[in-house]
């Protein structure tokens, strides 16, 4: 029975193939936009959570800066002292605590010169944060490790000599493995030097930053609270932030971008909906006589409605399936561009965002079909029969 009306719908769409295709295109674009953004969002969250759960979280501790003390207490703290580091170690327990200096300097390599950022840390701590790709780690008091971006900028090799602003020179002993965007430090774009060598040349009163590697993700909150209790009771002295927090702010920004693109997808769905409405109203008008005939030989109002709703659903389903399939391509490209990986494309949550996009597509088509279907079913049979 309903097969008959399904068949009617199919044949009518085929009869107006070009028009139907145009209506489908809108749905395809809408579904594609919504699904691809969904896939990207998912892949982003998945890749970051996966990284966090394998390498553990790191908690960054930095001096509280900004307003400091307006009441002249004289404690404008922009360094972390050795004593504070000792306290942090006690709080951190077995989790490694890595204090370091973070600075920048103009360097010269051969004829090239430029500014790079520099991390100075205890040679024992270096392997806790970075891995060496070529060469060796720093032993003793001399040698630098270079991040891959610095290497390509200055054409560095293991053994290259770097001349610092003040005239000191050091040799590159190792080149770091590329680490990508980090939440704690950015070694790809930096040089790492031994802290003792750095301290000998600079009159530092404290460290710029401390990183606590937290092995168990659940400990992050506990540690943050403990640090807050110990240092920030009277006034803010140290700020802490974890990768988790940075992740959530990244996700927040991403959420805004994705709301924006989803809105674009939504707008294109609205346009598609209007075009389906338009196509179907045309179809109702053109088929007025046909509807009159169908009614006169015993077709119920509800059956006429059914026929038109099938038509809308078919447009929606075809558009959504095409859009869903293309979303794999769209999601692949956008993930590759923004995350450099596509391994989360077939993850259940990515697939569910495709399903969501498709659901929206079908729902839009269905909504647009309701009015024409209602209109068609309420035509008076005699008016419809008189229509030429």
């Amino acid at each position, binding site marked *: 029975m309903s097969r008959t009306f399904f068949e009617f719908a199919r044949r009518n769409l085929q009869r107006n193939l070009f028009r139907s295709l145009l209506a489908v295109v809108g749905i395809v674009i809408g579904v594609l936009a919504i699904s691809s953004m969904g896939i990207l969002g998912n892949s982003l969250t998945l890749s970051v959570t996966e990284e966090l759960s394998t390498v553990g979280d790191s908690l960054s501790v930095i001096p509280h800066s900004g307003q400091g003390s307006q009441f002249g207490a004289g404690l404008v703290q922009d360094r972390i002292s050795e004593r504070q580091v000792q306290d942090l170690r006690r709080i951190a327990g077995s989790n490694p605590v890595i204090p370091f200096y973070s600075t920048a300097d103009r360097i010269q390599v051969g004829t090239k010169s430029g500014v790079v950022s520099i991390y100075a840390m205890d040679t024992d701590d270096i392997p806790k944060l970075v891995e060496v790709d070529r060469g060796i780690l720093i032993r003793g008091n001399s040698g630098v490790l270079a991040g891959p971006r610095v290497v390509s900028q200055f054409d560095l090799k293991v053994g290259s000599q770097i001349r610092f602003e003040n005239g000191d020179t050091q040799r590159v002993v190792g080149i770091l493995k590329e680490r990508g965007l980090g939440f704690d430090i950015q070694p790809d774009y930096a040089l790492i030097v031994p802290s003792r060598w750095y301290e000998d040349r600079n009159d530092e009163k404290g460290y710029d930053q401390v990183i606590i590697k937290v092995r168990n993700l659940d400990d992050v909150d506990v540690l943050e609270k403990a640090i807050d209790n110990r240092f920030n009771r009277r006034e803010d002295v140290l700020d802490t932030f974890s990768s988790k927090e940075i992740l959530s702010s990244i996700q927040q920004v991403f959420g805004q971008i994705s709301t924006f693109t989803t809105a674009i997808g939504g707008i294109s769905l609205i346009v598609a909906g209007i075009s389906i409405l338009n196509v179907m109203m045309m179809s109702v008008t053109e088929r007025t006589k046909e509807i009159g005939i169908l009614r006169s*030989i*015993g077709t119920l109002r*509800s059956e006429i409605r059914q026929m038109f709703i099938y038509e809308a659903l078919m447009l929606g389903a075809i558009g959504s399936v095409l859009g869903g399939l293309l979303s794999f391509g769209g999601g692949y490209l956008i993930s590759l561009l923004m995350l450099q990986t596509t391994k989360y494309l077939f993850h259940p949550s990515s697939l569910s965002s495709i399903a969501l996009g498709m659901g929206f597509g079908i729902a839009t088509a269905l909504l647009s079909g309701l009015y024409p279907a209602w209109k068609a079913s309420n035509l008076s049979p005699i008016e419809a029969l008189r229509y030429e």
Partner: protein
Amino acid sequence: METVKAAGEDDPVLIRFDEVSKVYSLPAGDVVALDRISLTVERGEFIAIMGPSGSGKTTLLNLIGCLDVPTSGRLVINGHDVADLSDDDLTYLRRDTIGFIFQHFNLIPLLSVLENVEYPLILKCRDRNACGMKPYEVLRAAGLDDERLYTHKPTELSGGQQQRVAIARAIVNDPSLLLCDEPTGNLDQKTGGAIMDLLAEMNRMGKTIIMVTHDTGVAAFAHRQVRIVDGRIMEDTG
């Protein structure tokens, strides 16, 4: 109400008009298409309705065909007062009790010849083999022997052939009443004659036929002539 059961299958009266008027309200004013018509049609009759253009013949047929309801007066069809029936009930009545044959054939362009004839069966029975008559038999009974034509679309057939398909479609659900609005109006004389022979045959088989025509030759096939002028019955030979 899935099917409208005839209240009195053995009541000889199939249709009764009692002071029925039909008024169309138009912006320019009311048009009285039918003016207090009273008319009784018994089962098995073959009636020709005649009259000048605009006299209300089609309107009368539409009322009998449950496509429209009277503005005033009482109209009883097969035992049902149409004023008591919902839109769905009227539709079931059309589907099960009434067959329509139009001047312009009015076949469904999306369906093939065979599908056009099957369509009312499917509406009624859902399963096209469940209802007694078979579309092939009916098409043959309507004088369309060439089975190669059955898969064609209606527009690929001649006018006479299309009208035969329309007749097959009208009788496939075995209605007791056939309504024909100028069934030969679009056909040449010879083809029209053949169609009339077919209708006369249907009438002999027991179907009540009410037919609108301008053609006195065609009207001669009927046993009773009703003449309408300005929405009133001027002459009734019955």
